[in-house]
């Protein structure tokens, strides 16, 4: 199994990694939710992370974006060790994160949710000497993001008043507004109808066209995986059990075993 992982070859080995986790492990009590995960990712590469519920996908994301601190192991953004950085410092370093469970500022307007992100990146947060509404560049960029994510018509509503699908869109729009180098999508289309999901997948496809970005995507829908993935990583019980080109990985016995045990229809 180990050799299978190491044998998997990324299609863009010539480019140096933009993100790397080394022997990354976190234990909750005795339980290792992420166990010795070593993987690196390159600009221009979209990696889909699959694995059954509880495999540790979200926990691994939390380690990379800084919500959790690993028990052992290290995380590098480019050449920089970011293992000990706070989430806000990682955001500034270019790591963007959208959450699986929608994680907005519920009572603030949709526009304000996005504006706060733009304002953070512009470094205007500590300013007390003007009105927030007077930051012209921040406002203009906010409107652009609202338009691209098709949220302009609901921009004045409190985020909590949006239907689920629009909340997911806002979740993604906020990460896009961070303008990160690394995009981490955690089940962005979860709970969305078949009619709503393409809007988000289109946004991801647009990001992918910019070959300098690294995209990590946790996603179960196999048609999505096939359409977007350059590479698939499989997590199981916190361990990285497969890593490679989509068709190679889907053909691996261990993957079939996990998925046939859990929900063959998803793979099929």
């Amino acid at each position, binding site marked *: 199994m180990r050799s299978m992982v190491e044998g998997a070859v990324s299609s863009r080995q010539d480019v140096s990694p933009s993100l790397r986790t080394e022997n990354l492990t976190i234990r909750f009590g005795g339980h290792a939710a992420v166990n010795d995960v070593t993987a690196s990712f390159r600009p221009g590469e979209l990696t889909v992370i699959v694995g059954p519920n509880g495999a540790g996908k979200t926990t691994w994301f939390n380690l990379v974006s800084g919500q959790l601190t690993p028990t052992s192991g290290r995380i590098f953004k480019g050449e920089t060790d970011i293992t000990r950085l706070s989430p*806000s410092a990682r*955001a500034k370093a270019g790591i963007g994160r959208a959450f699986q469970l929608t994680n907005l500022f519920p009572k603030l307007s949709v526009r304000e949710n996005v504006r706060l992100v733009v304002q953070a990146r512009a470094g205007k*947060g500590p300013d007390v000497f003007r009105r927030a509404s007077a930051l012209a560049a921040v406002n203009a960029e906010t409107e652009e993001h609202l338009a691209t994510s098709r949220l302009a018509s*609901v921009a004045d509503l409190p985020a909590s008043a949006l239907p689920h699908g629009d909340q997911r869109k806002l979740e993604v729009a906020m990460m896009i507004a961070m303008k990160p180098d690394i995009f981490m999508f955690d089940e962005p289309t979860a709970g969305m109808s078949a009619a709503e999901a393409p809007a988000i997948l289109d946004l991801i496809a647009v990001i992918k066209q910019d070959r300098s970005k690294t995209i990590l995507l946790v996603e179960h829908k196999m048609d999505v995986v096939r359409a977007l993935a350059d590479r698939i990583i499989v997590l199981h019980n916190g361990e990285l059990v497969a890593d490679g080109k989509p068709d190679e990985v889907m053909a691996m016995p261990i993957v079939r075993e996990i998925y046939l045990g859990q929900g063959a229809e998803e793979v099929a």
Partner: protein
Amino acid sequence: MTYAAISSPSTPRRVPAGRLAVYAVVLAIGLALAFAPFLFPDVRAQEVAARICIFIVLVASYDLLIGYTGIVSFAHTMFFGLGAYGTAIALKAMGPSFTAILVGGGAGLVATLVLALLIGLLSLRVKAIFFAMVTLAAASVMLVLASQLSDYTGGEDGITYQIPRAFAPAFKLFEDGDGKVARLFGVPLNGRIAAYYFVFLTSLALFLFMLRVVASPLGSVLKAIRENEMRAEAIGYKVVAYRTAVFCLAALIAALAGILRAVWLKYAGPDVVLSFHIMIDILLMVVIGGMGTMVGAVIGVVVMTLAQFYLKDLMQIGADATAGVPVVHQLLEPDRWLLWLGVIFILLVYFFPAGIAGTLMNKEWRR
């Protein structure tokens, strides 16, 4: 309320009636305070007006913490007291000069900043409940210190002192032809008026500054932290730094309010600048006015201060008027004013769950 109904972007934004009403009331209060010495010339009313000015600053600065950022602190009177005691001790030791106010007030502000930084950096990363406990402990220690260091603080009795001559009633701001104090609308233009306007204008400036803060980019970050601390951090705001900064800022403003209180009262003691009674008053005022609204501070302070000062008088009138009626007369006995104050609070909280200003200004969303 359907999604379609609230999302129609074509309807022009309505001018919200509740919001207008609140702003009108606050403006009226502001004007009343601005002309208080002429509108309400008696000594007790001036006392009330000055207290209202100072408490608006104190309560609004507390609203920055609890209403805007979601920080629960019980140490706000501690900072109020540091400003007041610093000023009082210096005025007592150095004599009644503006230099003494600057030196003592400055020392109080420095002590406030150091303490607030320490408390903030040591404990704002931990759970909210633990932070609240730390502030409670710090405030208790400060109360004990104030009573123990009685050589400086006068202990439980507090300290009385003189204030600069320009603020004394005998001081003539303007003289008429006969060398007597000039009058405007029959009100003598003496040092007491100067003291009131010192309090009023400083309070006004501080309140306007706080209005600016909550509308500024910093204010927007505070609200984001209140709404979802974890996401605020995730999009790039250093939450601990912002919380510490706003804690220090609110503490400094409370200390400035304390300086005003000491200058106005010519007295500083635990009961007027340090005790937990004041902390509870601040909490009630911010809740009654409406947390996270700033203008709520104005309304909460006025409602509660007027009730505290005038409810007894009002009940006396009621009791006299109902002298023959058995039960009603007894209920309106002025000694029972605290009971009625309690009833008023309960009714206010029941009918204005988000505070008076908060509930009125939100009227549109509810419909």
